[in-house]
Each structure stands twice: as C-alpha cells, then as structure tokens.
C-alpha cells in the first residue's frame, strides 16, 4: 500500500495504482476522455493532468503510478491552467455544433469544457473536417467530432475482440475508422456509442430523436437473451426511444448486447393491441368481455386433463405463476415451457443454471463449450469469457461446429456428442488439460439439449464436469446457457408437466382440447391439432397468433412490472416504462380477469399479493455443488449427430427482434459477410 496525499487528504492505495485512482479514492473528480476503467490506459488526451510535488511539470494522472509519500494537487493554478490549455487544443478541431449533435446534454466534452475549459475561444483559423464512415446500420459516425481518444479502438480490440477499428494516417490527418469500409461485426457494437465521450459515434436509430432531459428513465431487465442485462429504458410519452445498460458488476459490467439494445422499435410494430375472436373461421376484433366469454364457454365444459398451457421464452414470472395457479384450479397438470423441446432436468436447480456465475468465469482456469456459440447466445457472457482468456492460461475447448469465431482462441474438439464420451473416459487429448485445471467449467448450450438425445447430452456434460472434479463444495463448474430471459424463471416456478400431465409434444399432438399459449410464439401452428381451441396471449402477432381462436393482447417486457430470472438463477425485477398499447394489458391481470370469468378466481388482486404468493424471492446467492449425482439421462443414449446451433440469425431470434426494422437491416447487412468475417 502507498500513502498518497491528494489536496491535503491522505489516502492509502495499492502499489501500482495510478495517481488518478488515488485522486478518486480521495473523492476528487479528475476530468478525462481517453481513460476508461475497463480498457487499457492510452494516456493520449492529456485531460487528466494533475500536479505532483517534485515533478517538473504536470503529469497525466491516468498513466502515472503512485509512489509512497506522493503529494498530489488537483486544483492548483498550474492544474487549472494545464486543463484549460488541453481543452483549448481539443476544441481546435472539434466542431462546436452541439445544438445539432445527438450527444448534446450527455457529452463528456461539453460538460468538461463547461467545467474546466476557458470561457471563450481564441481560435480563428480553419478547422479540419473528416469524412464520415459507414460502419453499419447501428452506429452513426460524425468523424469531425472525434477527438481521437481511441476508446472505441481499444474497446473493439480488447472487450469485443473484433479488431476492426483503428487510427489511420497521422498527425493532423489521423482518422479513426475501419480503413476499408465495412460494417462492424461485433454483437457488442452498441457499447461504442456509450464509451465515445463525444458525438462522433452515436446511435443511428436514435439520431435526432430526443434530448436526454426529455426522457423518463425506468430501470428494467433485458429479456432478449438470458444474461439478465440490467438496462435503463428511456421513454418519452408512450414510446421507448432507447435502451441503455446499467452497471451491474456481477452480470453485465457496463456492456449490453446489440439485439437487446436496438430491437425496441419492434415494440411498435406487429403489436396485438385489442382482443380478437375467431368467428366462422375468421378472426375479428372483439371486446375483452367477448373474449373471456368465449374462453369460458369453451373451457367450462372441459375436464382439466383436456386443458393445457404452454409458456414462451420472454414471459415474466408473475404471469407464469398466475397461469400455473389457474391451471391447477382448473384441474390441469398439462404445463410446459420448453417450446424448443430442450430435455432439461428440473429435479435440482443446478441442473439448469449457470452455476459458475458470470462473475465466476473470471476465476475459472479452463473452459469446455458444448453445443453453443456464446458469442451469439449471450454476447455479454462471451465478453466475460474473453476477458478471462485475455489474462492467459485459459484453455478453451469447443464441441460444436468448426470454424466459429468466438473472439478468443479455442481448440475444436469435435462436432458431436462422441467427443463428450471420450472426455468422460479421459481418452480425449483435451482431457488431460481439462482435468489438470483447478477450476474447470463446462458451458453447455441449451440448443444442445433440444434434440432427441438431449437428456443424454445433459447427463454426459455433467459427467465431464464431474470427471474433471469441477463439482465441489467450493466450485461449481457445470453451466447451462439459456437463450432467453423468461426461460429460467419458468423452470424455477415449475411450469412443467405435473403428475400425469402432458408435455408440449402431447399437448400439440391432440392431447388437449383447449390450449393456452402464453407468449409461446415459438410454437409452430402447423403442429397444433386442427380441433384444438387455441388461446393466444402475447404481445406480437407472430406465427402462433395466426392459429388462435381467441387472442388476448398482453404486454412486452418494457410495459410491465415483472420478475425475470437470468441463466445464473438471479432473480431481478424490471419496471413498467410505458403502458401497453391500445387495449392490451399486463399479462397477470389478464389471467386474473380470465380466472374470474372461468369461475376459478385467483387469490390475488394486486401485484404485491401475487408476489407474496409466488415462491421466487428477488436476489441471488451463488450456489456450489454438494451433491455430484448427475441428471437422470442415460449417457449411453448419445447419438452421433453433430451439434447444430439454435440461433441461425443473431439479430432476429425472438418475436420482438423479428418485428424490428433495425434488426432486419442488421440481418441483411450481416447475413452475407459472415463467411468472410470468419477468416
């Protein structure tokens, strides 16, 4: 530890810390542009100059290591002058176009020019201008505004792992760009907008839409992948205008995946905004009363065993619990939430969770990925894996398709479950490496379970973890990576066939006469038996809604207070940012109202009452493995079919992103060049 005095305040910081960190520890604000906590230090903007006693001139605090007994001044005349000088130079080539700049109001340069700059400009000469770059449909560039802090260059090289941005030419002619015009291939590219301290990289969909002070900010949870990214939903009136990540060190740090960030325009398109009723084979608009009456008329005469419910991938826990309770009241045990047919064993929570935890990845020292492309399935978790990999000594093996670009080095161990068998036996060449690791982890993709031998794959992956001694009271190395935000919540609440109940295959195959689809848009309508009465409750008129007899318009994740469980099992709450459109309502209220019409009134009238009854407490506690007994599947049942990946198209994977125009543009942009990018 080193003792440093900052403006008369004595602080102790670890040896090797920088002067800037010491100043922050003392509660002093140091202006900066190029410095970012999660990126390497560049030291090129010079804004963080401070005075260090006995140093001949001001030092860049972000890159200057502390020494014991150092005396730092952050507010002396020397420092103030230095900052003013740096700011004057930075503004030489920066266009003062704040009134038409999208960063205005939340711009580091604007704020710091106000706080630390001069009150007038002495510059009378010509400014340089830089040609804008086309780097894809998500990010708008106005490169004249760039101050060359190189945060974006470092982010894409270090965090995203796709080195495509760089600084070409030099001096006066230095430009940040890709040199060869190309769309950035990263799934984390939206974060460039957040880290850019000026208005050079801004959001294309948000261009000229709003000023930050006009927006109402609501905390939410991203459900478009299973990471459970903490988000802030910015709205004005009845519209979501943008979605930004919130900092949560245990989950997403401060990053966010592009699908979650940019899909929200899908919330305005193809929406179900009023109930619909099928009359004489044709859907017609109806009132809520008519819809409930039709449901009651059909369901009241049916025995419970002929009624079923299937939940989709994005549904929040409250409505799952409400529907499960309703089904129990109707005497039905026919429930399922595994629309993809994944053979998940719910007898113990750690069979279907990401037990190592996302933050725990940084402790691991070997990784085996089975049937998954984490870069597409959870870009944020993939960035965490890359962060660990970049620290070195982290062998990564992949069982899955050849030639995936995961953004970190990995060894391909095989394309099908056969490799799992040899890993259990210990005869695979990777076995030695994996077993030598002290904290090995297995990352099993949910897609690897959605196949006929899914149960065997699950059991085999567990056994691989067990064979490497990854299942210990102080380390849990078995991880299942889910795909969407509602999947784990449904498993945790047991939205699964009860005693004597039918699973999704049975229900679709004519096992029920009435089927309640709660956001289950992944169900192929052609699979549903012709005579089945289908109630579709959801927010988008996707595939399954077209087959419905009654459509109940529900709320999307930004339009309701809801609880979601991420792939780790972390229970998090999101809040209502805007109201559902038209006559659509929050889903649990719809189920509550339907229960009354069915004469099976649910015992809760408010969300608080529902939550009290729901066996799912907010929060998270990391679990370890005290019982290494595996899931029930039989390893002998492994087939020889190669693993295929569940997401064919990263940008259009769910009902919201499929309705989004921005995501459609991305899909069109990235569909072709993927093969090139893999080289």
């Amino acid at each position: 530890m080193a003792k440093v005095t900052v403006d008369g305040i004595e602080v102790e910081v670890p040896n090797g810390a920088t002067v800037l960190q010491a100043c922050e520890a003392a509660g002093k604000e140091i202006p900066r542009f190029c410095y970012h906590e999660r990126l390497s230090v560049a030291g090129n903007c010079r804004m963080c100059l401070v005075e260090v006693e006995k140093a001949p001139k001001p030092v860049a605090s972000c890159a200057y290591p502390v020494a014991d007994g150092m005396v730092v001044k952050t507010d002396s005349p020397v420092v103030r002058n230095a900052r003013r000088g740096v700011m004057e130079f930075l503004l030489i080539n920066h266009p003062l176009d704040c009134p038409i700049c999208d960063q205005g109001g939340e711009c580091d340069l604007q704020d710091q020019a106000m706080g630390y700059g001069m009150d007038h400009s002495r510059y009378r000469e010509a400014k340089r201008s830089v040609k804008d770059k086309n780097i894809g449909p998500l990010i708008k560039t106005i490169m004249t505004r760039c101050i060359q802090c190189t945060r974006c260059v470092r982010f894409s090289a270090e965090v995203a792992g796709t080195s495509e941005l760089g600084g070409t030419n030099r001096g006066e002619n230095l430009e940040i760009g890709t040199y060869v015009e190309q769309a950035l291939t990263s799934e984390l590219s939206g974060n460039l907008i957040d880290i850019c301290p000026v208005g050079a990289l801004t959001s294309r969909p948000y261009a000229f839409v709003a000023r930050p002070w006009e927006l109402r900010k609501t905390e939410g949870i991203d459900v478009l992948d299973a990471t459970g990214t903490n988000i802030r939903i910015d709205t004005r009136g009845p519209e979501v205008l943008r979605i930004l990540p919130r900092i949560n060190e245990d989950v997403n740090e401060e990053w966010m995946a592009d699908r979650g960030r940019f899909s929200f325009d899908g919330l305005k398109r193809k929406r179900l905004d009023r109930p619909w009723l099928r009359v004489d084979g044709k859907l017609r608009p109806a009132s809520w009363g008519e819809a409930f009456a039709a449901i009651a008329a059909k369901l009241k005469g049916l025995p419970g065993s002929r009624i079923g419910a299937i939940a989709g991938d994005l549904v929040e826990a409250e409505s799952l619990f409400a529907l499960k309770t309703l089904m129990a009241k109707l005497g039905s045990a026919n429930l399922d939430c595994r629309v993809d047919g994944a053979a998940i064993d719910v007898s113990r929570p750690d069979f279907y969770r990401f037990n190592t935890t996302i933050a725990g990845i940084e402790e691991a020292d070997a990784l085996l990925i089975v049937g998954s492309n984490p870069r597409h399935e959870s870009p944020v978790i993939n960035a965490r894996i890359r962060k660990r990999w970049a620290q070195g000594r982290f062998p990564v093996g992949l069982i899955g398709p050849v030639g995936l670009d995961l953004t970190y080095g990995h060894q391909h161990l095989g394309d099908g479950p056969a490799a799992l068998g040899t890993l259990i036996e210990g005869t695979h060449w990777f076995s030695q490496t994996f077993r030598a690791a002290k904290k090995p982890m297995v990352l099993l993709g949910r897609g690897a379970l959605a196949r006929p031998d899914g149960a065997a794959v699950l059991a085999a992956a567990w056994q691989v973890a067990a064979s490497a001694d990854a299942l210990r009271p102080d380390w849990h190395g078995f991880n299942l990576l889910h795909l969407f935000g509602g999947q784990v919540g449904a498993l945790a609440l047991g939205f699964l066939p009860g005693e004597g109940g039918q699973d999704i295959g049975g229900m679709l195959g004519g096992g029920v006469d009435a089927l309640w689809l709660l956001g289950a848009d992944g169900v192929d309508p052609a699979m549903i038996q012709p005579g089945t009465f289908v109630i579709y409750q959801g927010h988008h008129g996707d595939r399954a809604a077209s087959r419905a007899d009654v459509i109940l318009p529900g709320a999307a994740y930004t339009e309701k207070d809801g609880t979601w469980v991420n792939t780790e099992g972390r229970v998090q709450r999101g809040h209502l940012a805007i109201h559902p459109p038209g006559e659509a309502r929050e889903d649990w209220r719809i189920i509550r109202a339907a229960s009354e019409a069915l004469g099976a009134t649910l015992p809760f009238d408010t969300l608080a009452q529902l939550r009290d009854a729901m066996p799912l407490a907010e929060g998270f506690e990391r679990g370890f493995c005290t019982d290494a007994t595996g899931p029930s599947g039989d390893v002998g049942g492994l087939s020889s079919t190669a693993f295929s990946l569940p997401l064919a198209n990263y940008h259009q994977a769910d009902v919201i992103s499929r309705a989004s125009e921005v995501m459609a543009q991305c899909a069109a942009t990235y569909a072709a060049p993927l093969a090139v990018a893999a080289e």
Partner: protein
Amino acid sequence: MSFAQPTHFAFDESSEAEIAKILAKYPEAKKASGVIPLLYVVQRQMGRGTGSAWVPKVAMDVIAERLGMAPIRVYEVATFYFMFNMKPIGRHHLQLCGTTPCMLRGSDDVMRACHDAAHVHVGQTSEDGLFTLTEVECLGACVNAPVLQVDDDYFEDLDYDRTVALIEALKRGEKPTPGSSIGRQTSAPEGGPLTLIDVGGE
C-alpha cells in the same frame, strides 16, 4: 481512391527469401514486429513486378495473415509512415529535400530541373509514368546539399544541369552512380583535402 486496387497478391520467391530472414529475427509470438520490413518487401516486389513501388490493400491483408495480426493494425502502420506509398507511383520516386540547407544550396533549381526534364510537379506522376515527385523534409544529407533521393539512392551536390542529366539518364534506363555528382568522396571537402596534414608531403 481513383485507382484500381489489385484483387490478388502473393509474395514471389525472392520476397519469400527476404521474409524468412526478417522473421528469423523475432520470436514466433512477437512476429508482428516484422510488419514494417514486410511492408518494404511488398513495396519492392510491386516495384519489381509492376514498375510501381506501392502497397496495395490486398498485400496488407496478406501481411496481416502472415503475421497473425488484425488487418487494421497493418493499415494503421502503413498509413502512418509515408515511406509506404498507398497509391501507385511512377517508375522512379523522386524525393526532393526542400529543407533549409538544401534550399540555401539550390534545391529550387533542382525542383525546376525536375519540372523541366521529368515533366512532373510535386505530388504528381508524369504522364509517361516514369516519375513521381515528392517534396520531403530533411533527408539527413545536408553536407552534400542539395539532395534528391531517387528510389533507394541519394544523388547529392546537384544543380540544374546535373539534375537534368540525371533524369535523362534515368529515362534512357541507365543506372546512374549514386552519391556526389561533383565527384567528391562522401562528404569530404569540395575540391580535395583541406587540412594541413594532407596538403603536401615535403
């Protein structure tokens, strides 16, 4: 960019021999250090093969692959140093020093000679494709000013007539001898030895 980028580039045999020597200097994990020498290899090979020593984009991609770097890292280096020509140039690259010592010793005459004999202006390539003229900062040969660098060689102590003669020789495809054009030995004093010791042996 108003010129055509080639679609293909591969190192030829003599380039490969050079690369083998260059990469032998660096440990395998640090082979990216060879990026600048390899850019020179590309530029020389282009000069040999096409008569225009420049670095096409596709060649930078080849270097990136060879050295295990992201292509953008090669573009950054290549565009930073102006020794690398990012667009096609003439058969001979005339780099004329116009910094103070050369200017005082008559670089303006040399410039005029380039205009008159090579029919080329600064930053341009002559119509016959033989010459590209660039005005550069100090070449570090002030003692023999004014200096004109032709490709890899320095031609020193030039004046108008001798520059014209040099350019005419280049046009004829000759290989003029580099160095001082007035015959002095390296940077020794003009007109022979000038120290007492070397004056006479009596």
